[in-house]
């Protein structure tokens, strides 16, 4: 098998996709959003409990999608739990750089090490959107997701 493929579908990613962490709808979230990839029809919902100061007290997601999108959502949820708003923003920005094969200067060493497994996606430009879907949805949930909860919509 070629190396790019082996790197894309390495064990950590397959494990996250088969056994996603923080998976399932959250009762009474403070924020939520739904993401949709019209290219493949994949959907993901991200649920958050944000503290008064914006810290991610709890996070969950659910949805159906490819191994990349599921693994990425699972890793995102694991990493974001407990982060401040500022830390979450930095992580998101760093991740978006990383999957495009760009310099991800804002990431801490620990986060970089954890997310390194997602770096292989940069070799597959048609699949970058699979990896970023949940992360963009997280950002929408933070920025606009309070209304979605109050209106009972996503």
């Amino acid at each position: 098998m070629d190396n790019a493929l082996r790197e894309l579908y390495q064990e950590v990613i397959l494990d996250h996709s088969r056994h996603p962490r923080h998976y399932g709808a959250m009762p009474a979230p403070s924020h939520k959003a739904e993401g949709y990839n019209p290219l493949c029809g994949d959907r993901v919902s991200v649920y958050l409990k944000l503290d008064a100061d914006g810290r991610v007290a709890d996070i969950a997601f659910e949805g159906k999608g490819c191994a990349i999108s599921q693994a990425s959502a699972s890793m995102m949820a694991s990493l974001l739990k407990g982060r401040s708003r500022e830390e979450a923003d930095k992580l998101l920005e760093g991740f978006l750089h990383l999957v495009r094969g760009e310099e991800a200067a804002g990431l801490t060493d620990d986060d970089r090490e954890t997310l390194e497994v997602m770096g292989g996606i940069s070799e597959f430009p048609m699949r970058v959107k699979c990896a970023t879907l949940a992360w963009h949805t997280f950002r929408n949930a933070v920025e606009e997701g309070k209304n979605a909860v109050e209106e009972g919509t996503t």
Partner: protein
Amino acid sequence: MTVPFRKEMKVAMPFDAEAVRGQFPILSRTVYGKPLVYLDSGASAQKPSIVLDTMLDFTQTEYANVHRGVHFLSAAATDRYEAARRTVQKFLHAAREDEIVFTKGGTEAINLVAYSWLMPIIRPGDEIVLSVMEHHSNIVPWHFLRERCGAVLRWVDVADDGSLDMGALDGAIGPKTRLVAITHMSNVLGTVTPLNEIVARAHAKGVPVLADGCQGAVHEIVDVQALDIDFYAITGHKLYGPTGIGALYAKRAHLKAMRPFNGGGEMIREVTKDRITYADPPARFEAGTPPIVQAVGLAVALDWLMGLDRAAVAAHEHALLTHAREKVRQFNWLKVIGDAPGKGAILSFEADDMHAHDLATILDREGVAVRAGHHCAQVLMERFGVASTTRASFALYNTRAEVEALVAGLARAREVLHG
């Protein structure tokens, strides 16, 4: 050695896919160091050299705008453009050349019927009958009429094997039906619809029929007069021709009643400050400078296709499909969607725990190009309860060895994703 041509030889000789492949330069390239196995012709077919060479040659020797100048080149280009129309007429067995309107593709052809024929006559509550296996290009234009004119869409289901439910079709056509809009061949299931039967049943109730022939015309011989069909849409790029060109066949009486929706040059007879009169069809519907080079390219592609023994081509494609269908039975994790009798050479499937995009990415790295996604057929995806499928579509240049490559690639994908 030259062998004198004898008609019976053409019938007796099996179709030689290997020989035809040589006419498609792109098929000899590699991707990721592996031979290209192109199984995405349902999305767009590759083009034989004769199409590409003729388009270049025409552009270099005879090109000018059409229907305008009196100069030599304009006359030459107009001749070629109008000859292309006659080639489409011949391909579809239309009675008259002025029943062929050039469009930029199948989508525009269907939109033309929606805007120019149906929109002016539809009333709130009038119904349009369509099947759940339509491509979005044969759904969205009718949704426009639902949104803007109060039309009601009546959906005809397919059976679990993908066959059209003819009983449901009968039931759906009622006194308020203004049009039956149906695919000739599903781009996902491969199902070929019985157009002659559909037209007979619709006409018995006075309802015209439009067929989306974007897939059907590639694999079936279309005779619009024998079918007595009202509208038939084709696109060039799936017929081994260029992009940016397609055509609508419409019965003369319909064309004469139609209101143009694109206004501009070429489609008028006279323009004054306070009034216009339109040109006769088909010019009435071809506003602006048309895709001249593409029309010439399409004509070459159709002539090339008509020069082949199309029954032998169909048999070859069917053999590829049958072989692939048999081979994938070994994968108990793979479920084929669409097994209608007499279906065309399209194999769609979903796999347990393996998403279409993961499968397609891994196949791609093996050199095998397939389509993954909803195939612009989300209503059909909903019918089968899937978000997406993987689709291999076979063309006349595909070979048995390429089916084997697909099957090997699928086994590899399973290995990668399940260890």
